[in-house]
């Protein structure tokens, strides 16, 4: 008998979700939009930099170097400009960077090579550079990243003897998607599971239906779990969508164990659901539930989880605070599994912490969610 009531409940809850286009849009649309936004638009990668060249003599060496830069996908050649026009070029936004060649570029190149030193190409360092890069640094991140990249390009292929060789492990092209995908997963599941469940439970309080539900033989635990099931299933769909998008659209390698990522994600989903349940026991109005979810979860998740700002850079107090944020552990674990391709044993600590948090939250929430109105 009880069982019949329980599944009727699950069915009813699913109907609520299916009938409300806004819920469906939030649950299924936001993950895709956010992932694509963070993956493409909000990247810190250097892409599509426009460059112009100012060279008094367009010698063979200059042309070769310009071609080498233009051949790279990150840079687009905008044409040659007069050295007097550099400032105007940048101000008008025609170029993000102007590569300026010294008027005796050819001679200095020749000197450099004949001197037999390690220096060649553009990397002549004798106090008077042969090449100058003039950047529009109104976006410092882009300028810094672009400058570094351009510098490496100019020096490339000249086998310098004592140059520092950089080797970027796990994310050799410094793609920001690698960094953001785990972060977005940490954010989205909190958003969908916690906010949606808390709002849907509180909605019943607000509309008065909770009163009728409580006066039924179905126990509060049943009511709560019946509410969680449809949202849990939806979140699993989201998980699949995110992983597929990350792999095939954003090109995140997903090199480690997919099973491990799924396992820890499902644990995290349950934790987020428990959090939503907990919020619903505090809030009496849908608006309150929303505000609590946003203030208590979204902001800390964005600020303190390491999704955007590395935890290691935070002051000690904030680092300690971030330990209490589930998303921190989740994001850390997913980065290890997904990007670094570590085995599941590497995230046992994170898994344990998340598990303990889930158990504690469920216990507190169920304790608080009683079958009375007080």
């Amino acid at each position: 008998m009880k069982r019949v009531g329980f599944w009727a409940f699950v069915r009813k809850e699913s109907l609520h979700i299916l009938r409300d286009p806004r819920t469906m849009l939030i649950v299924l649309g936001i993950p895709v939009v956010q992932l694509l936004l963070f993956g493409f638009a909000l990247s810190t990668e250097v892409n599509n930099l426009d460059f112009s060249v100012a060279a008094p003599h367009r010698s063979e060496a200059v042309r070769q170097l310009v071609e080498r830069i233009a051949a790279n996908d990150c840079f687009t050649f905008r044409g040659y400009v007069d050295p007097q026009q550099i400032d105007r070029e940048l101000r008008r936004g025609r170029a993000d960077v102007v590569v300026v060649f010294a008027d005796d570029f050819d001679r200095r190149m020749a000197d450099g090579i004949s001197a037999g030193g390690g220096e060649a190409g553009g990397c002549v360092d004798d106090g008077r550079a042969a090449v100058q890069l003039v950047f529009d640094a109104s976006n410092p991140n882009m300028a810094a990243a672009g400058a570094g990249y351009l510098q490496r390009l100019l020096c490339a292929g000249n086998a310098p003897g004592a140059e520092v060789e950089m080797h970027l492990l796990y994310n050799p092209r410094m793609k920001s998607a690698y960094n953001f995908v785990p972060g977005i997963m940490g954010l989205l599941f909190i958003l969908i599971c916690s906010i949606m469940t808390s709002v849907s439970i509180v909605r019943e309080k607000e509309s008065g239906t909770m009163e009728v539900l409580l006066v039924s033989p179905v126990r509060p635990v049943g009511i709560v779990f019946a509410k969680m099931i449809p949202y849990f299933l939806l979140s699993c769909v989201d998980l699949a969508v995110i992983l597929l998008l990350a792999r095939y659209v954003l090109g995140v390698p997903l090199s480690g164990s997919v099973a491990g990522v799924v396992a820890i994600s499902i644990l995290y989903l349950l934790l987020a659901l428990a959090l939503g349940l907990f919020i619903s026991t505090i809030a009496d109005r849908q608006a309150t539930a929303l505000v609590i979810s946003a203030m208590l979860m979204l902001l800390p998740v964005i600020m303190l989880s390491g999704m955007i700002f590395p935890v290691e850079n935070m002051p000690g107090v904030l680092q300690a605070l971030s330990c209490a944020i589930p998303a921190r552990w989740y994001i850390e674990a997913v980065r290890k599994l997904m990007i670094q391709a570590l085995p599941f044993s590497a995230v046992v600590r994170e898994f344990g912490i998340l598990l303990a948090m889930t158990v504690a939250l469920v216990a507190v929430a169920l304790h608080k969610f009683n079958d009375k109105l007080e």
Partner: protein
Amino acid sequence: MVGDVAIRVEGLVKRYGAVTALDGVGFEVRRGELFGLIGPDGAGKTTLFRLLATLLTPDAGRAEVDGCDIVREARAIRSRVGYMPGRFSLYADLSVEENLAFFAALFGVSVRDNYGLIEPIYRQLEPFRTRRAGKLSGGMKQKLALCCALIHRPSVLLLDEPTTGVDPVSRSEFWEMLARLRSEGISILVATPYMDEAQRCDRVALCDRGRLLAVETPDGVVASFDGVLYALSGREMFGLLAAARAEAGVEACYPFGAVHHLRVAREFDPERFRRRLLAEGFHEVGIRRVEPGIEDVFIKRMEHE
């Protein structure tokens, strides 16, 4: 022993912080009785319903529903009562039949099981079976809510202001249904702010500010009125109210529908009062003797509290 008492309430007290919502209420509802709770907003009716539905815990006193204590045997009560809260409490985004099926399943029965009980009501809803509950008219919503509260064939029905905000025709139909349910042996406790509905109850309790003023049959309540009552009408109703209140023989004067009711002393002379009102410039003044209703009794009792 369950006996022939459906609801027994003894000295029930409920406080919300400093506010005392129920202040020692006691009464009994007999099995198969249609019992009305009459009182203004804030009288404590909803609190009483929530206590009986085991949604709240009393601060003092005790109550039994269908022989079960509301504190110790809450769970047993829950499968025996049909509770309809004051606000529309169905799912607006589910259709009529989905709502009914859900509440049936919630109580572990199927709609078929007790269809006979709700059939007279549900027949009227049948044409709108697939319509969303939120799109029903007020009267239809309440009929659906009643069906949902009845689907598990409860022995006690708790209806908190089921007809508030419903048109007079639907209200009347609703009460006919309650009468039919009573004949099926279901005990009904119903709250209403409408005095005219009180006449349809077997017995009524007048309540105000957490206390019961009287528990009586509707006729008994009316018979307990020991005053003389006149209805005053005219073109300048507002002015008449003030004039009547200033008159020496008038004990009380209050608006009552389209007229004012005047409770007066024995020696009051209505004809002289009417002539003086006309002389003072009031138009079309009429005054006639009327029989008291429950509302008149209620207003009188409230003054005496």
